[in-house]
């Protein structure tokens, strides 16, 4: 059983295409790629828009807010997560549109539910970048309803 918020922080492999994204996480900023041709805001971070094929892509800053699109309490972990169970693996739908893989933290794993409102938190990897995870926040409006 892990303490709340004590998930491992594996260092992601960073490459020239993704350095801007990861550097921003060190400053507590969640960037998203946006196509300047068709306007699509997409995930994961890359420099080609899969919606229209354009390579004219810019970075915008996400609000860091979203809702849980799907979640599972993982009770048998592997690798870095072997001793981190139970922990919540989830897709969060950001307010900007993209659904991103992440963990939900700072609450009992069993309490996480689809539709729950969440906000980003950054967990420092100690290697110049941080992992964007999410924690529950108060519900607002109709965000909790299925789309």
């Amino acid at each position, binding site marked *: 059983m892990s303490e709340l918020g004590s998930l491992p922080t594996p260092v992601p492999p960073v490459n020239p295409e993704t350095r801007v994204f990861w550097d921003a996480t060190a400053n507590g900023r969640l960037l998203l790629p946006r196509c300047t041709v068709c306007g699509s805001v997409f995930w994961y971070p890359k420099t080609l828009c899969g919606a229209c094929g354009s390579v004219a892509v810019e970075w915008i800053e996400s609000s860091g807010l979203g809702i849980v699109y799907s979640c*599972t309490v993982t009770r048998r*972990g592997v690798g870095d997560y072997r001793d981190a169970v139970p922990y919540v693996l989830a897709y969060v739908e950001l307010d900007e549109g993209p659904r991103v893989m992440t963990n939900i933290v700072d609450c009992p794993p069993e309490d996480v539910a689809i539709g729950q409102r969440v906000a980003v938190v950054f967990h420092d990897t100690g290697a110049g970048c941080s992992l964007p995870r999410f924690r529950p926040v108060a519900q607002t409006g109709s965000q909790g309803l299925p789309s």
Partner: protein
Amino acid sequence: MSIRGKAFIAGAYEHPGRELPDLSLAQIHAEVALGALADAGLSLSDVNAYFCDGQFGFGGISMADYLGLSVRYTDSTNTGGSSYIGHVGHAAAAIAAGKFDVALITMAGKPRTQGRVRPTFQIAPEYAFEEVFGPTTLGMYALAASRHMYEYGTTSEQLAEIRVAASWHAQFNPHALMRTPVTVEDVLASPMVSDPLHRLDSCLITDGGGAVVVVSPDVARSLDRQCVKVLGHGEAAKHLGGGRIDLTYTGAVWSGPQAFEEAGITPADVDYASIYDSFTITVLQIVEDLGFCEKGQGGAFVSDGGLIAPDGRLPFNTDGGGLCNNHPASRGGMTKIIEAVRQLRGEAAPQVQVRDCEIAVAHGNGGSLATRTGAATLVLGREDT
């Protein structure tokens, strides 16, 4: 051009072993190759094309060397567990184009004795945005199950019905690893591994392998063995869609219609289906996606013996499937083809043989479920269809 009737499966062989500490991987490939060729009445010297998933590196060259094959064509398409179903389609298309007339497809693995490692690729562009969050194989499927339950009201009891059906079939297969029928209650009482999936929602981890031989119509006519006609094939790669991922369906929504159209059939014409069963949710989504029922109605469709042979709505995985019989190399596509061949030849276990089985489907899923995932559908018919 269509592949309908342009190629036949002449030989099929499933390794009887489920735990093989004393065989090398190449030996397992060789045993299943010889088994499938013997089943067809052919020999290694007849083979002029070789297909595998390329696990030894540089495609099929290594095993072609080991087996002493003289091949003019190789294909090592690797779409996870769906690979081999794709291989049959590729072989049929190439046979129709006159590239060769006898293709050997083999697969083998030893995850039970060597330990299963979740395949990941650090150099893949998505890796950094997923693997750091601790996804497990089961966790990825669980995310799809959770969302399906949320949108459609699918229940754990309904998922358990899939395991119940597979275990009922497995009792009639002397080679099956788990031959004891289980109940819905047994499934729900097994340990939760990644909510909402339990241990008994999960496939087996087995050593072993399998092989099939795909031949031209001329070669098929020359053989004494009853062959199975390749009627249609479809493939698809489903992905994140720029982050608009929908976890409630798989690539079968695209591969299925392609295969059915090529075969000239509809889902209602299918007598038996081998459906990829890495986890119970895999089966549930695929029966919906292939059009055997409406989207979201899979839970009701699989309940009340809906999948149990020979009289269920859709007899499936009559060998016990990857859930109870065999899931060699954690890649279930090959065994899906092999049981479909048995059904069409009338050689399934008598208790689960579908009467007058004329049309069968083998569907494979590869990678994960509903996220980045391969799909391959094959429609097969009795030799005289």
